[in-house]
Every structure is written in structure tokens, then in C-alpha cells.
């Protein structure tokens, strides 16, 4: 996945929005910058399929040797799929944060939150 084509949240998640018929499905992950800052990840807790997530609110947790951090949803809608295998292979977050280490897919119930997301260049400036 080319990170240039993604949208980014201030809280270091990335989003890719795709049209699936009349629905919009957002794939969500965390950025390479976030993974680098967290380091030594040992645990990840993800929401069950079917749960509702809200833009700006926590949807899960990621834990490193040093600390526990919330994962914040950049979008609002229903979780339609999660990356089941990810919590057992957290190393994928280092290897392929924008591809194999995607975290969840959300069917958007409203799209206004997307307007608050940044493009790659703006995010990189903010994160550096």
C-alpha cells in the first residue's frame, strides 16, 4: 500500500476509504511513526466485529513493555471485519504497517469525520 494515498489522524492512525456499492468501507491501521514510538509491542486488544466505533474515541488498546496506549478511531461506523491474526503477530506492525498490519474495516455511518483527517505531507510535518 502506498502511504501517499492514505488519510491520517492526529492520533497516528491511517485510513483508506473505498466504495463498496452504495457503502463506504474504511480500512484503519496505525502509522509507522506510531509503531516506532511505541516499540516493543506485546499485546493488542481489538473490538469485536459488529461493534460501533466513533471518530475520536478509543476502540482498542495496544501495550508495549513500557506502557498501555489507546487506539483512537479516525472514523464513525460499524466494525465489519478485524485483522484476527494481528494480535498474535505484532511484528507485522513493524514490517508492513500500511498493508498486512491493517487493524479493522469500518462501514461508515457518517463521513464528516473524514474532513478532519490529513494528507500524508501534512501528517509527516506534524509527526516529525
Amino acid at each position: 500500500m502506498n502511504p501517499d494515498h492514505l488519510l491520517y489522524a492526529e492520533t497516528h492512525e491511517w485510513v483508506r476509504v473505498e466504495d463498496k456499492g452504495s457503502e463506504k468501507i474504511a480500512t484503519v491501521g496505525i502509522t509507522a511513526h506510531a509503531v516506532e514510538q511505541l516499540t516493543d509491542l506485546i499485546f493488542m486488544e481489538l473490538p469485536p466485529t459488529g461493534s460501533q466505533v466513533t471518530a475520536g474515541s478509543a476502540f482498542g488498546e495496544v501495550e508495549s513493555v513500557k506502557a498501555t496506549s489507546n487506539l483512537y478511531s479516525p472514523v464513525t461506523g460499524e466494525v465489519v471485519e478485524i485483522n484476527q491474526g494481528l494480535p498474535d503477530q505484532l511484528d507485522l506492525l513493524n514490517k508492513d504497517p500500511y498493508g498486512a498490519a491493517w487493524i479493522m474495516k469500518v462501514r461508515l455511518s457518517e463521513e464528516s469525520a473524514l474532513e478532519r483527517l490529513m494528507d500524508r505531507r501534512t501528517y509527516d510535518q506534524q509527526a516529525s
Partner: protein
Amino acid sequence: MLQTALHQWHVDHGGRMVEFGGWSMPVQYTSIMAEHQATRTATGIFDVSHMGRFWFRGDDIDAVIDRLLTRRVVGLEAGKIRYSLMCRPDGGILDDVLFYHLAGAAEGEQFMMVVNAGNRQKIFDWIQAQTAGSGLAVQDRTLDTAMIAVQGPAACDVVKKLSETDPTSLAYYTGCCSTVCGKWAVLSRTGYTGEDGCELIVHAADAVAIADAVLQQASAVGGMPAGLGARDTLRLEAAMPLYGHELLESVNAAQTGLKFAINLKNREFVGRDAIQSAMSRPELLVRSGLRLEGRRAARENCEVWSEENRVGVVTSGTFSPTLNQSISMAYLSPQVAATGTALHVDNRGTRVPAEVVQLPFYSRS
């Protein structure tokens, strides 16, 4: 915020700087796991210059300081170092310290103490107040010295290549004045990782050159710089208490289980009677070890439960890189503190099964 003499060295080596005890310190350079494993298998190099370093001058220094420590240091032989607690009259813990009677030291440099960074001013003031009229002079040399811990199975070999004194000729918990890289240094066989190793106290102006030389030797055997993150996981596996977590003014020394550091017989010291009476109070919580199910760490202040009764609180917890599981130190009611007792920890709303285990979690073979 204070910076150690190695601040720029940390930045140059990729250290991620955080505030700790009023100092800017590296929490890690690469990853906590890698630095932890390097220390267990080869050598980790730690800047511990934030720890307070006091030198004492006066008459009968060991006798004067003895009255402030839970452990006997009067008559301590030259070369020996003692770990001790320092307590209030009610037995509450002011700090845990190392008291040194250095061998080979110049006049006025034989007796020193290392205290925790966050307690430096408090302990300085406490010693001054408690010893007023004794003629004891306390000199805080924290800022014009640096302290480097070289820890791990290869640590003594690394230091041996650079020091006048062969560290393997020193017994554990002994120290002397010597030279490292030709510069004045206090060399001691001490540490806070559960591994063998040395700590070097050097002049601040010599710290960078000495750190470079140590790193060069250590790199050749798989060693690396290590930050406060690895220092915490290493000391936790070794069940060494940390001030502010296991040790607090609200905790009586008797609760810590550090029996080797408390001598009550035939001596008087501040807090003695309160510690003695606390030894026979069965309701006081005691420091204990917990092994938790899964990889997820319990953190400070997580509550510990037995069935529906709250029986204690976690003071430190981490994922243990060596044991590959979640471990915690906690203060527990003595009724549930026996090894093998099944409990659970409330970890952010989740009940995690836990078992009481003997401390330490890890000890080097």
C-alpha cells in the same frame, strides 16, 4: 530539568529522552527488549548519573551515619558497600541507599553514599538535620561527577580492559578508588539489574571519553547502551524494589521483606522501634511477587483480589522479556501471600488470574 554529563552522548546514540526524577534521561536507544537481552547475555551500559552522590567528612562517620540506617555500617571495613534503607521515626521509608567505605581513597573521600535521584535534596536535608552537632560535613557531588553502570555477564571483562583495578578481583558489593582510562574513578562491583557488573563514578568532564571507551569494548562482545526502560524490566525481574513504587514513606521497612537490610539487634537507629513493632503486626501488607496469566502487564495501582475480597495492590508490573510472561510486585495481605496462592488482578477492568510466586522472578545462574 537537569542533564547528566552524558546528555549529548545519549542524543548522539539515538536515546529517547524523558523526564525522570527531575533529570532528562534516555528511556531507550533501540528497543527495551533488545537492551534487556543484551544486558542478560552480554553487557548493557547505563547512565545512572541522576542518582545522588554524597561524600562525608568528619570524625566517626560510620557511627554517625549508622544511626540513620536500618543496616549496621559502624565498623564497616574499607572496601565494603552496604545496601540499606533510611527511615523516619515511624518506620516509613525515606529512601534506599548504598553506603560505601572505599578502599584506596584519599583522605576525605573514604565514605560516600548513593541515593535516589528524586530523593537527593530530601536525604541531604535529612542527614544534615539528623547529624547536626556531630561535626559531619556532607558534600553533594552529584553534578560534578557522573556514574556509569556496566552490567551483564561480560561487564567485568569489559571494564577490566580499561581500569587499573581488575574488577574480578573485587568481591560483590565492594569498591575502591582507582582509575579508568587513566582518570580518577570509583569502581564498585554493584548494580541494579540482577546481573554481575560494575558501576563507575567518574569526574563529569571525563564521562564522555569513558562512556565511549566502555561502549567500544562492550560492542565487541554484543553489548549496547541501555536506557531506563530496560533498567526497570531488569530490576523488576530481579525483584529489586524501586523508590516511589515498592518503597514509600507510607510503607514501613518491615513490610518490604528486605530482611538482609534490617539489623535490629543491639543497635539504635531512627525508626528502629517502629520497625520492630511492625514486624509483629499481622495485618500489614507485605511485598510479594505475582505471575499473571498472559503477556499483558499489570501496572502500578492495579488492585489484587482473592475471590470478592480486595487483598492488595500492584506496585510495579511489566512483561518479563526473560520469562516471556507478565510479572508484578505487589503489597498483599499476609493471609494470601503464601507461594502458590491463586488470586486475580483487576487490570483496567479485566480480571486476570495471578499466582503468588517467590521473589526474585529471575536470578542469574
